[in-house]
């Protein structure tokens, strides 16, 4: 079963072909790695997947549904959630509220019910709080639930971003360099957490990462990008042995 299929995806910025004829197929439940040197076009692929940029060419299919060129929020509703390379939290909201914004489209009461504090407001807010704390527990953030997101240490901010993305109940989770800026201990913990998310939520995950221990440790399949083009694609072990890959990327 295929969760994500990308065919002939391309985008240019001025003269630069940041992503050039990119093809990939990600199976349901797979933990897929996207690696390559800086500037290779990895983040741009995520931006194309989430509708931040519109592709010049290509088709993106999520779980059988064509999502090419749709708006970011529609793509989120269709089932893609992401984190950002440079952390983007709602910094003046509490940790719990960050997750509740993620839950926004899954639990409803209308504006009037909120302003008048009607029974539905109370009932739904209680559920929101419970679900938010449940998710925060997975990331060991429940003790910090009422702390402002901006006051979290760096590693925990990265975790909160993943929690917020998961709160939107996606089919596909995109993680953009989640280990960047983490110390080795935090990276190990992150590795366990990502594995746990994959198993526990039955999640399909695409991971952009530079830390090769993390990539070789948990990714089942890999694509190596170089100058916007696919250099190599396949099972992690095969890809990491490929001489071209070693030359272009790992050998640096």
């Amino acid at each position: 079963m295929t969760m994500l299929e990308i065919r002939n995806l391309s985008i240019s910025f001025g003269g630069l072909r940041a992503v050039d004829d990119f093809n990939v197929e990600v199976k349901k439940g797979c933990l897929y790695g996207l690696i390559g040197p800086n500037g290779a076009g990895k983040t741009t692929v995520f931006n194309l997947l989430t509708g931040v940029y519109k592709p010049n060419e290509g088709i993106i299919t999520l779980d059988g549904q064509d999502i090419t060129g749709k708006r970011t929020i529609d793509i989120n509703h269709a089932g893609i959630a992401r984190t950002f390379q440079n952390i983007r939290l709602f910094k003046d909201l509490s940790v719990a509220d960050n997750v509740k914004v993620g839950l926004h489209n899954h639990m409803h009461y209308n504006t009037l019910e909120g302003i008048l504090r009607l029974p539905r407001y109370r009932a739904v807010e209680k559920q929101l709080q419970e679900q938010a704390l449940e998710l925060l527990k997975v990331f060991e953030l429940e003790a910090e639930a009422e702390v402002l997101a901006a006051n979290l240490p760096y590693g925990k901010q990265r975790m909160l971003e993943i929690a917020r993305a998961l709160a939107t109940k996606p089919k596909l989770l995109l993680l953009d360099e989640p280990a960047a800026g983490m110390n080795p201990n935090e990276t190990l913990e992150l590795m366990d957490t990502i594995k746990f998310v994959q198993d526990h939520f039955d999640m399909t995950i695409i991971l952009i990462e530079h830390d090769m221990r993390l990539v070789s440790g948990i990714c089942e399949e890999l694509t190596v990008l170089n100058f916007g083009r696919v250099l190599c694609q396949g099972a992690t072990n095969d890809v990491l042995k490929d001489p071209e890959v070693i030359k272009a990327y790992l050998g640096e």
Partner: protein
Amino acid sequence: MRMMAAKIKSNKVLRSNLITFGMVIGVYIIVQILVAAGAVSSLVRGLLVPLCTYAILAVSLNLTVGILGELSLGHAGFMCIGAFSSAFFSKCMQDVIPIAGIRFTIAILIGALTAGVFGLLIGIPVLRLKGDYLAIVTLAFGEIAKNIINMLYVGIDESGIHFSTRNSLELNLSGNGVVIIQGAQGITGTPNDSSFTVGILLLLITLVVILNLIHSRDGRAIMAIRDNTIAAESVGINITKYKLMAFSISASFAGVAGVLYAHNLSSLSATSKNFGYNMSIMILVFVVLGGIGNIRGSIIAAVVLTLLPELLRGLNDYRMLIYAVVLIAMMLFNWAPSCIRWREKIVYKLKSGKKHTKGAE
């Protein structure tokens, strides 16, 4: 544990809101007692309704500036729209609806609705754009609204409403017709339905709506957009919808303030003093000095900065000096990093002090 965390959070919000309501009601009671005892000068008595007006304006602007994070420089324009639409209604209906309470309630709804609709009309094209266009457009809107009303003549007779932009003769009214809006002279003879009590009630309603909105699902979405629009979009928040919601609610309460203002005067005209750019900036000053996003602070700043120049009148030359010093002091207290640290330290000490005594018991 889980339930406890939920309780603590909602208790904290509840307590902060209660302090705000308590403060307003407390001031109201004290003022009423002082007025009854004859201890309030007529000068200050005349300021009571304007104080409520400014407080509502500051609180509602804070929804746009502090909670949505957009800069609006035309808040007085929405106040102007609310003032004239409601005064027009009240003057027309003065004899048709003799019960002041009912007439004024409808007038308030009309003022709020008209201003809110204008908020939507401006917001729909502008808030979809990325960038700080709202400041420029609202600035222009405020001036245009004021100037258009200044040249507008509106009259009414059996055949309906007549408009002109030149003079009242061109309205071609029949013998029974009356001119309601008379160009730069505005509207005269609006029923004086406003009072301090009504003002406080409207301020309380404004507070309930805006504070409850902030601490609801919609409020979280609005603040998420403020903190990081790209991230909010990525988790499926409809940016345009929530920006429009915050901005038009903010505009409609400016309209309510306008209704209160209009029904406090026997003659209402649009000048650069009451509905112009200066007024918009003054409201913004209340918001900034009271603390962006701090609703209670907006009220305090509006009251202090309105009362101060009046109370200092006796000091003549020193008046503006003291006013300036207070402005600077308030700004430092709210915004200087060392002051913020100092305040946090005091709060921390007070809190840990409490815990300490509890432990000792």
